[in-house]
């Protein structure tokens, strides 16, 4: 998306003011900051270590020939480096972060405190199980919460993120088909066109083939299309369906869908990314779901951290529970125990997905959050999340075009139908940067043209929602009126629009030292 600024106004401000160049390259509080390779030095370090004695060596000659040449920084320089960079990031702690499907809610600080208790942070996954009874008890307690909230009998705790949980669920389905002797014939997985990209990608990773089903005019699964896909059933492995779906809507026919899939001999995988909208109000176990991952980093408030780590425990029905991966925790006369091998109690397990036992640091945070809210609070979470989204929809729908009629769940979806010719969703998104907001999810789901998916979450006040709506309405009105200055946004962010085409055409994926000859020639 190379933005050509020539011929367009580049700034709504008097010439020379906002574009003023400074000697330092900084602008007020926004500090210019180079790469560590430009400011650091290979002989510098910010860590004091005892000098090696140089006497002993048992490497047998398997020694590194060339040093890495990486620079170091003293502690004050390193701290300042990261502080300066941090100022160039938007974050939930700065303001509303309305990314649809991402559930960017407040991350309580108590969670950070408990996760850092040495009894959780300073224990090794393979130390004797007698010495980690509290850790195993915590995993068991969290598992109980997840099973109770979802109404499902079992949960696999080890998946590392949402997509890894999808992999877990689909591998459990594959294993169940193997046990039935039908793994070779049942290869087809139905996936709605509106699904997260991870769904089809996961199905393929598990050796399935993807058969896309259409959305109807109401943004739900097109039941006629689904039924036509089920005219032949002996090749059906299952369906992967997000509920509430990626249009922010509850799948009204979900129980019938589950019955049709089960009647066809397949399994029902539910993408649980949007569980925040329904916890305490609906249990997936009552809807016929066979497997569902839960993003602890969405619904249960563990921090997104700029792209992870996540955690994706996956609840399983009675039909799939025997195939759950190792390890898992059992509680018997000997206390809490890890089942780590695929024999005995786990003889039907589909295997091991990952080293060790899952994202313990995220488990501590999620359980802290659950205990804080309690069963009553989590229900209120869902209701406030849905209320906030509907409030946004109600306040914006007079200017923006709702993608579908009626109430939404936890996120409000709009199409770009209201924008004037030439103004696109991305222009609205980039203008929001100038208003001090992270944009909504853009161009997803794919079934809505120029989609804008807004998920405020429950941790926003009415005042913050009003401020956000006022900002977005003003941008939307400009978009409807064809205001060309939107094409140059952002004007006030730390950077102007970045050239993503150039980045992909000639990828520069690491810093390389400037060629000394070229420098000399300058």
């Amino acid at each position: 998306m190379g933005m050509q600024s020539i011929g367009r106004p580049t700034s709504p401000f008097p010439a020379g003011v906002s574009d003023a160049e400074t000697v330092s390259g900084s602008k007020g509080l926004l500090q210019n900051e180079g790469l560590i390779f430009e400011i650091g030095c290979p002989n510098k370090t910010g860590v004091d270590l005892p000098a090696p004695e140089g006497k002993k060596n048992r490497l047998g000659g398997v020694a590194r020939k060339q040093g890495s040449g990486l620079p170091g920084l003293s502690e004050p320089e390193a701290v300042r480096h990261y502080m300066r960079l941090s100022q160039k990031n938007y974050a939930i702690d700065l303001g509303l972060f309305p990314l649809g499907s991402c559930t960017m809610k407040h991350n309580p600080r108590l969670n950070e405190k408990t996760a850092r208790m040495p009894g959780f942070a300073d224990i090794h996954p393979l130390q004797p199980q007698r010495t980690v009874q509290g850790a195993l008890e915590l995993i068991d307690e969290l598992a109980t919460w997840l099973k109770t909230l979802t109404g499902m009998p079992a949960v696999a705790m080890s998946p590392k993120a949402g997509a890894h949980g999808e992999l877990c669920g689909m591998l459990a389905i594959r294993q169940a088909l193997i046990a039935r002797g039908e793994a070779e014939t049942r290869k087809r997985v139905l996936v709605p066109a509106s699904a997260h990209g991870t769904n089809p990608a996961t199905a393929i990773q598990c050796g399935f083939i993807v058969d896309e089903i259409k959305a109807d005019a109401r943004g739900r699964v097109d039941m006629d299309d689904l039924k036509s896909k089920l005219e032949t059933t002996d090749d059906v492995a299952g369906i992967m369906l997000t509920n509430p779906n990626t249009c922010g809507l509850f799948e009204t026919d979900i129980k019938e869908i589950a019955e049709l899939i089960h009647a066809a001999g397949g399994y029902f995988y539910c993408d649980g990314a949007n569980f925040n909208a329904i916890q305490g109000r609906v249990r997936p176990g009552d809807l016929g779901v066979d497997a569902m991952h839960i993003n602890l980093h969405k619904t249960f408030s563990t921090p997104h951290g700029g792209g992870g780590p996540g955690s994706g425990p996956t609840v399983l029905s009675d039909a799939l529970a025997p195939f759950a991966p190792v390890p898992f925790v059992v509680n018997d006369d000997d206390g809490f125990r890890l089942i780590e091998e695929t024999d005995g109690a786990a003889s039907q397990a589909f295997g091991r997905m990952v080293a060790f036992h899952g994202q313990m640091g995220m488990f501590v945070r999620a359980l802290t959050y659950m205990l804080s809210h309690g069963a009553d609070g989590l229900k209120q979470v869902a209701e406030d999340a849905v209320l906030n989204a509907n409030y946004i929809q109600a306040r914006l729908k007079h200017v923006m075009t709702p993608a579908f009629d009626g109430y939404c769940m936890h996120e409000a979806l709009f199409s770009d139908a209201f924008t004037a010719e030439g103004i696109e969703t991305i222009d609205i998104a980039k203008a929001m940067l100038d208003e001090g907001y992270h944009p909504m999810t853009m161009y997803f789901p794919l079934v809505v043209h120029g989609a804008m998916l807004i998920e405020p979450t429950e941790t926003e006040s009415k005042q913050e929602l009003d401020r956000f709506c006022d900002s977005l309405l003003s941008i939307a009105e400009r978009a409807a009126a064809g205001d060309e200055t939107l094409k140059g946004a952002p004007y006030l962010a730390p950077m102007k629009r970045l050239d993503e085409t150039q980045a992909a055409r000639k990828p520069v994926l690491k810093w390389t030292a400037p060629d000394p000859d070229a420098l000399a020639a300058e």
Partner: protein
Amino acid sequence: MRYLPLTPEDRAAMLNTIGAASVDDFYEDVPESARLTGTIHDLPDHQGELAVERHLARLAAKNTTASEVPFFVGAGAYKHHVPASVDMIIQRSEFLTTYTPYQPEIAQGTLQTLFEFQTQVAAMTAMDVANASMYDGSTACAEAAVMACRVTRRKKVVLSGGLHPHYAAATRLLCEAQGIEVVQLEPAVDGELELAKHVDDGTACVIGQSPNVFGTVTDLSPVADAAHEKKALLVSVFTEAVSLGLVTPPGEMGADIAVGEGQSIGNPLTFGGPYVGLFACTQKLVRQMPGRLCGETVDADGKRGFVLTLSTREQHIRRDKATSNICTNSGLCALAFTAHMTLLGGKGLEQLATLNHEIACDLADALEAVPGVEILTPRFFNEFAFRTPVDAEAVLAMLEERGVLGGIRASRLLPDDGFGDIIIAAATECTTQDDIAAYAAALKEVI
């Protein structure tokens, strides 16, 4: 409730704006038979900070921490010192509470740290390019195997007998789901070079590890040569990232793909996760890599900036044709890694690695002096395997009674391979001479 800003008055006003009578209206699409009334039974109601903190503290107190006893447990996760500033940096709200940097104009902080991370990982592994991290070492290993199959259009991978058994299991699982044949060589303390004998024209890659799960360091160059002769790839694995400061790195051995666990740098043990998978490869293979990549570009004013790039490999664009289903990576753990590396620098890493090695040598000397102990690992970095005259599980239990966590019995990782008398022990910069003396003394008592 302290995390919910809406007041009852707000809720009423908002419902009024919407034109709904109550929130129940929003749930009318839920089939009636599936609607819950009241709150969920069997779960407690909300609690204040103090009560919750007490509950968690009670659980935490039941665990023995690595810092409170002489501690020698490794095998894929290592007790290292994390500088205080690293934890402070990753708790900055702007890093902690932000999303994947899909809006680069307001995410240069995250993006620049990822670019620096990629550069550091590439330099440490001596590879051309690295991605912006994976879930952990084991999943990185599995992804490397399927990537090698994509690159070579072959369907067989060979795993060494020294590959961490959890890594082997995760790799086997993903490969078998995709119809890829997996050849697992017999577990062996010093068998990485055996891989060279198991490459044929159908082999996509061989996967070797150095230091391996028994601690053995191996120059895999002969394996790389054998693989390349058959147009197969070498995937070189490590579970101890600090070793890269001292031990021959993957790039110096001719590896095509290097994967490993980055936990040792900047990240606490945390009972196994979250950790940070490192993934690097040759320039030639970059477009077949899984996971996110950060690249340099310019903005509309010509200013240098960074963006996520080559996303046409990824699931959110390519869907069923993506190189992997991975979406989330380990952003914050990668930040901890890169911040710690920035403090260390290349020299600091080398010094840290040397210190680890020398302390492990001290440990080996002390244990070797105990009658009946036989060190099995011929060349090691900071971890080695040794044989005891009695059952390893019993030895470790008796050591535990004497307040020493003396390592891992190999049979916990390899239950069926006759390793019942083998213990794998690791030492790091956190290990003191007193710890070593305590271990040796306790071991002398129990065997």
